[in-house]
Every structure is written in C-alpha cells, then in structure tokens.
C-alpha cells in the first residue's frame, strides 16, 4: 500500500461550505408546523417540588402545552446508568425533575408554543412551589455525616469510593530517604462549545417513525436511549447529528432534553424544536475538573520516586450520567510517563447540589497530570535539583514497553503503555525551547528584578478508547466512494482524515471520496466521538472496510481480465495487470459489473463493506510541554511568553489537523490554568452565568507556540495511530503553574491550585510576603 494521502497536510474538505456560512447546524433546521420549547428551570439547588401551576402560562397566546414530570409516565423514569462503575452509588437524571431538584437550573417543566418567544414568556409564568433545603456545595464537607444530602438515598453523598494500588506504599514511604506532603486543588469549568445544545424531533404518526436531530457527539447512544425511554424499537428511531459547533465532551451525554423533546413531538403530533440559550447552557450543561488531592511522595537523593500515595475528592455534581469515568481517568493519568513502583490512589467521589460533572476535554486527566507534575517540581525544589533532570531520572525508558503501570483504566483493563519514547519527547522539547538558554535568561531576568519563570510538564494521554467503532466503504457504479461512520465530527475533521485513510487503502484519489457521518441510518452501531477515540478506532474500521472492498474489486477484475488476482494492482481508481498498464479497468467498470453479474452462483451485488475495529485497550500518546511566563507581583498578572512542545500521537494522519487540535487544546488549557472558573456561592447559585462572568480565552490570551512531532506507532492497531484530541489541553494547567511558581521562587510563593486569575495569584503573593 502506498501512503500518498495518509500523513499529508491535506486541506480540510469540509471548510468549503463552512467558510461560506453554508454549514447546517441544528438551529438552521426548520420544519413545517414546528413548535418551540422553553424550559422552566429550578431556582433552587436542593428542594422538594410542590404544586406546579401552569394556569397563567396556558393563557399566553400561542401556548400549546405545559408539561411536568407527572405527565411523563414511563418516559419520566431515571435514565439507565451508562458505564456502571463497580461500587458506584448511581444517580441519573430524568427527562424532567421527578418531585425534587438537585441543582439550580434543573428542568422542572417544559412549555411548547407556536414560537420560542411565546414559550419563553409562558415558562416565566409557570408558578412552582419549592420546599427548599440547605444545599451542599463544598466538595470536601459533602462527605460529613451532618451534610445535607443531594439524593436522600445516598448516604454521605458518596458516589464512589475506589482504591487503586500496586506495590506497598506504606512500607516504601517509611523507608524513603525523603518525603513530601501536599494538597492540590483544581476548580471547575466547562467545555463551552460555541454552538449551544439543541434538539428537534419529528414523529410520523402513520409510519410510527421518530426522527430526531441533536447537537450531539453520540447519535447512536441518543437513539438507543430514546428507544428505551419512550418504548420504541431502535430501528424506528433515527437520530441525526447535523454540523455540530464544537463538543469537547459537553455533548457526549444523553441529556434530559433529548428525551423530553421527542416525547413532546409524539404527544403534540407535530415537530418540536428546542435550542438552548447560553444562559441555560451555563446552568445545566455538564461541567468538570473540581478535585482536591492530598498526596504524599517518597523519593531518594536523585529525586527518583519510590512511592506515591494520593487520596482525592472528586465533585460529581448532581448526577452521574457516565458513572465514575472522570475520576477513574484522573487516577489512571496520575503516574504519567514515570516509573513509580509503589502507588496508592484512593478516590472519594461525591455528589453536590451543582450542575452535573462529566467529561470535558481531558476528562480527569489534566487533574492527574497537575498533581504528579506539581510533585515533580516540589521534589526538585526540595533537593535543589533541576526540574527537568528530576523528570528525566523518573522517566520510563524505551526498552520497557509494553509497560504495565500496575493501575487499571476505566474499562477495567490494565493501564499498559503499548509503546513510546518518553525521553524522546522530553529531550526534543528541551532542545526546541533551548532550555539551557532559558535558564541563563532567567538568571539575567532575576538580576534585573523581573519574575521570569520556566515551566515543564510531561503527560501520557489515554486516547483511542475502545471497545469498538465502525466505518463503511462503498464504491458506487459511477466510481464515487462514500465512506460512512458511526461518529460525527464536531470540528475534528473526519471528513478529511477518514478520506485520507480510505484513499490509500483502496487506491483511489481522495477527490472521489465523500465521508458521511452523524446519522444512525448510515450504520447500525456507533459509540461516538469522544476521548480522542475516533481517529484510532474509526480510522482502523475504515481501513478494514476499504481492504475488504479492495479484495472484492480485485476478485471481480481478475475474472473480467481473465487473470489471477496476484497479477493485479490498483492505483488511482484503476485496476491493471502488473506490467501491462494499458490493460486496465476503472472502478466504475468493476462496480457496474459487480451489480450486473450478481447471480445465484456468483458474488453478492455491489462493492461494499461495513466493518468494526475492536480493541481491548486504550492507546497511549505522550508529550512534554514547556512554557515561559513573566509575572507582575504587584497585580498577580501572568504573561505567558512562549510555548514549546514535543508530542507523540503515533502515526499522524494529517499534521495540519493534528497541530490544529493541539493549538486549540492549549487554548482550553490556558483557560483552565489562568482564566476559566465556574463559581457557585454557598447558596448553590452559579455566579458565572454568562460569557461576561465566565472568562473564556480570547485571541490576545494566546501565544506563540512551537511544536515538534515524534512518531512512535501504536502496536495496538495496524495504522499505528494513538489519538491526539486532548493532548493539547491535558498538561497546560500543570506547565503554566510550574512556570508561575518558578517565576515567583524568589518570593517563596507555592502554587497548589488552578486556575490562577490575577486576584487569586495576587492573594498568594501577598500571603507569601506576609509569611516571610
């Protein structure tokens, strides 16, 4: 197989329509007789619901229906638990709040009306009787016996308690020459796709078929959940994810609205549309990152880690639609690229009366990396050693792969790194940054009274999550090649990368290929786009299908040319006899033959295959990031100066897209490190309900980025791909905080938390000055 397309920086094929404003996003879809929905959302974070009075609301002109949980019947039961984790005290949401609310913003009632304006007006007129209780907001005190309960049947709000260990941590700590204890904290933010969520449903009463459009990362899961909740057969439900304006994990879960809107469409007998406002998104879409870690490390004179003990609290928010996936990821990401013989990681995940926590780009991994990388810096400072060198002595060497870390991943398998060159990315990043030069510059800066810091962080990403993904390939009678997959794109560029893979495997120009995705009618099964998984699994599924189609093309062409398959070759959509280039057949000719010649004794008609790529494990990407910052101690303002990174995501399908993923990921990480925070007050009210309060990174917050690629193929799939979607984000809070602490070393400021907006850093600087 030639690799003409795989590995090339092919310009994105989906751009042509997107730059013209011809994308078709959910809110662009208009159906005849469409009704509009607005939700009545809870004002209180913890309350039992009394009477819901819709009499006034029903009088608003244009209102069709006001429904609450009591109207829903079976459709109102709690959702099934996805990823039921061992030991999880499950709490899932319902299409509308069932008698009580667990966070401010939870949907209590829905209003359908002729226009969105009428629905909104009527929603404001619905009177809800609340019997409020004190909420529990603080993560740490949620477990106390006297804490208010989020779910009355879940004692001490404990969603999950889990211990992962290898070796003997206590013994290793006792005998370690040096020990350090630290507490680290990361607060919560959100994925913030620029397109809010939205659902449209249309029920054909005669055919009893339901069609749903949703701005989702997982159309098949949405279909399956709708079928279950509404008592329909899966094949009678079709879910379409149109062009989707970003996901970042926020759109992986099946939300209450994705059941309620189809239910309303069936009840009203007309199409129903709901498009989330940004304010609603802030209140009710999933958020992530809040954790507190208490760690203890034992190490020797060289900085080599002998033991890592970590107990952490994870905030689940109100519900656990995806079980314990996020905290488990944190635990699995904790040791990164390091050899740590004795590890104990204990998770206490608790419910709080806040918006539900679920995966956001990195899904628990940025926290794990933050903890171990802050520890590396502390060990270096404790021993007076260079932080890069302390990382080096701990790094897993290239001859150790496959390397079993002794921990488990969220699928229950071992966290076993299949391949890698971890020192390779460290060395490449140090060289790219001219690390020695930066240290020299720091000496000069300090002499001049400036606070210039250098941060460094390694990471191992857990992408390519199994268990499977599908992709189909067909060669049509006119030689065009549709490729269809079970996972939509929210900007990742599947339309280009999947075409690149197919083009090489099939031996056809990319111009003939059209990638179709985001429609359950295209392919029976799908899991979705998340966890940097689809390039790895979908890419390999497309490869399998392309190879199967290619085999059939060769078989049929062999008969047509009366020659053996072994003597045939395929190039650029033509089959020819090796050495006899003028004796060739076009794909069109073979495809037509495949349809015409199908008979009782021959091949089945057509050139088509749909295969699924299965995997038992996760792939592991890795990299090293280095950042330089300058801090203004009088204000706490951090200026990130330059950013360098070396990363390894296995074989690269399209370097332009990979670089784009990393740069975008870094922006999300800069938000996590310096800007973004979803804050609740002690009454459980969100203080950051709009983009005016929630500080998204803007163009001026981004900086010069230099990167190099290293390619260590994955051994877990034939294409050698590892996945990259979250790599940009995962180490950023760690590297920026490493740099800030380094900059402020003369002032003795310790950085144990992120994000660090100026006021918070200023407080730390002032506290350090007072202590000194």
């Amino acid at each position, binding site marked *: 197989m030639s690799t003409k397309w795989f590995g090339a920086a092919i310009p994105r094929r989906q751009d042509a329509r997107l730059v013209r404003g011809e994308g078709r996003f959910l*809110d662009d879809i208009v159906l005849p007789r469409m009704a509009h929905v607005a939700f009545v959302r809870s004002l209180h974070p913890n309350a039992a619901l009394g009477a819901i009075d819709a009499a006034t609301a029903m009088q608003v002109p244009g209102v069709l229906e006001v429904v609450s949980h009591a109207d829903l019947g079976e459709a109102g039961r709690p959702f099934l638990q996805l990823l039921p984790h061992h030991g999880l005290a499950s709490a899932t949401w319902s299409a509308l709040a069932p008698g009580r609310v667990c966070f401010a913003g939870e949907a209590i009632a829905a209003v359908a009306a002729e226009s969105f304006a009428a629905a909104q007006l009527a929603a404001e007129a619905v009177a809800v009787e609340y019997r409020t209780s004190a909420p529990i907001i603080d993560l740490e005190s949620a477990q106390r016996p006297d804490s208010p309960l989020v779910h009355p049947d879940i004692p001490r709000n404990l969603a999950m308690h889990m211990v992962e260990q290898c070796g003997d941590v206590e013994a290793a700590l006792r005998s370690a020459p040096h020990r350090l204890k630290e507490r680290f904290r990361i607060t919560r933010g959100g994925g913030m796709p620029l397109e809010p969520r939205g659902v449209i449903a249309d029920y054909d009463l005669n055919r009893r078929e339901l069609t749903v459009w949703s701005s989702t990362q997982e159309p098949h899961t949405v279909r399956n959940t709708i079928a279950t909740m509404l008592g329909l057969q899966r094949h009678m439900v079709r879910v379409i994810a149109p062009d989707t304006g970003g996901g970042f994990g926020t759109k992986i879960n099946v939300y209450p609205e994705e059941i309620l809107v189809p239910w309303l469409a069936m009840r009203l007998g007309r199409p129903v549309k709901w498009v989330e406002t940004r304010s609603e998104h802030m209140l009710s879409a999933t958020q992530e990152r809040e954790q507190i870690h208490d760690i203890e490390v034992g190490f020797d004179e060289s900085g080599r880690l002998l033991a890592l003990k970590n107990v952490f609290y994870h905030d689940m928010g109100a519900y656990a639609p995806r079980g314990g996936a996020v905290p488990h990821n944190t635990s699995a990401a904790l040791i990164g690229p390091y050899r740590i013989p004795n590890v104990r990681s204990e998770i206490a995940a608790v419910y709080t009366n806040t918006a539900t926590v679920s995966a956001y780009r990195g899904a628990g991994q940025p926290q794990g990396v933050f903890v171990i990388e802050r520890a590396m810096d502390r060990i270096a400072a404790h021993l007076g050693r260079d932080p890069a060198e302390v990382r080096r002595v701990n790094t897993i060497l290239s001859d150790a792969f496959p390397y079993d870390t002794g921990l488990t991943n969220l699928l229950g398998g071992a966290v076993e790194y299949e391949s890698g060159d971890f020192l390779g990315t460290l060395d490449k990043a140090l060289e790219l940054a001219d690390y020695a030069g930066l240290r020299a510059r720091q000496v000069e800066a300090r002499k001049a009274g400036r606070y210039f810091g250098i941060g460094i962080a390694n990471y191992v990403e857990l992408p390519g999550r199994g268990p499977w993904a599908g992709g189909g390939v067909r060669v049509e009678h006119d030689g065009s090649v549709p490729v269809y997959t079970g996972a939509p794109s929210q900007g990742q560029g599947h339309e280009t990368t999947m075409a690149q893979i197919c083009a090489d495997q099939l031996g056809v120009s990319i111009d003939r290929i059209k990638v179709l995705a985001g429609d359950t009618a295209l392919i029976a099964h799908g899991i979705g786009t998340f966890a940097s998984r689809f390039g790895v699994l979908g890419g390999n599924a497309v490869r399998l299908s392309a190879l199967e189609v290619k085999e059939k093309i060769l078989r049929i062409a062999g008969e047509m040319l009366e020659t053996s398959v072994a003597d045939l070759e395929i190039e650029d959509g033509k089959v020819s006899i090796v050495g006899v280039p003028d004796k060739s057949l076009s794909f069109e000719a073979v495809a037509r033959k495949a349809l015409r010649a199908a008979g009782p004794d021959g091949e089945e008609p057509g050139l088509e295959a749909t295969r699924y790529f299965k995997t038992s494990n996760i792939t592991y990407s890795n990299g090293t990031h280095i950042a330089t910052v300058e801090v203004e101690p009088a204000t706490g303002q951090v200026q990130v100066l330059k950013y360098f990174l070396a990363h390894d995501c296995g074989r690269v399908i399209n370097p332009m897209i990979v670089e784009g993923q990393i740069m975008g990921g870094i922006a999300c990480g800069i938000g996590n490190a310096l800007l973004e925070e979803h804050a609740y007050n002690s009454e459980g009210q969100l203080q950051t309900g709009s983009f005016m309060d929630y500080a998204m990174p803007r163009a001026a917050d981004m900086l010069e980025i230099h990167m190099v690629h290293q390619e260590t193929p994955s051994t877990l799939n034939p294409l050698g791909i590892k996945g990259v979607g979250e790599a940009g984000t995962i180490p950023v809070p760690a590297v920026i905080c490493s740099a800030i602490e380094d900059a402020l070393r003369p002032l003795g400021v310790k950085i144990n938390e992120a994000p660090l907006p100026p006021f918070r850093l200023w407080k730390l600087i002032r506290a350090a000055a007072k202590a000194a």
Partner: protein
Amino acid sequence: MNVPISIKVNGVERQAEVEPRTLLASLLRETLCLTGTHIGCDTAQCGCCTVLVDGDAVKSCTMLAVQADGCSVTTIEGLAQGEELHPVQKSFHDCHALQCGYCTPGFIMSSVELLEKYRDLDEGRVRELLEGNLCRCTGYNNIVQAVLSLAAERGRT
C-alpha cells in the same frame, strides 16, 4: 404592531414587516433564511452573529432590525462571488483557521472589517481587534495568521 423596514442585504433590497423587538440576527436567520449568521450567546460576547452594517462589524444580536432600516448589511453569504471565495474566506481555509466552523462566519466578518479599516496591522493589533469574537476550537493562532497573511499580501502590492 409590525413595522415595515427596507434593508439592502448582500446587495439586494429587501422589505420586511417586523415586530419592533426583532433582533437583526433573527431577521437575517429566520425571515431572510440567511443561517450563516450564528447565535452563540445571549450577552453579546461571542461574536458568532457578526455582520457588516454600512461597513461596520456589528454583533447582529445587539441591533434591532428596525435600527437597520435603510442600511446596507453584508452577511457571510454575501462575500463569495459565485464559486470564487472572498480572500478572507480563502485565507481561513488555507491557514486551517476553523475547525467546527460555528464561530467562523463571525470571525470572517470581523476580519473583513479590520482589514478594510486598518492599514498597519501587526500580530498584537490583530489579536486586540479580534477581541469581540470567541473561538473554542482553534486556539486563535491560525485565525490571526489568516488575517496577517492577507495584511502582508496587501503590503506587498
């Protein structure tokens, strides 16, 4: 009570009767079916709905349709000449300055305005001038590059 208005949209005179509260963004999207103008927030922060009103980049969610009466509005759909992309659209494609494409129309309209209005554009200035638009996918650098490459081209001619 509806109000009659007359707006030139992408070079074509359009008449409409609108409720006074109708936002320009709603008029464009719902009445005129120009869905390339997107809505990403409800506080005039994201810039997804940016269009040109008499040459100025305006967040169309902050302007009433009746305020645009008599104005000339250009939306993302009005930039390309048939098959030929506007230079800013082409530059965004060439520089991989978009991923999901939701913020892209707004960024392109803001970029068209700033390239039109400002002669001495350097990186810092472009970053500052794009302050009104949010992007969650690209990390902005390729967007800044898309604008700067056009500014540099202009400098050469």
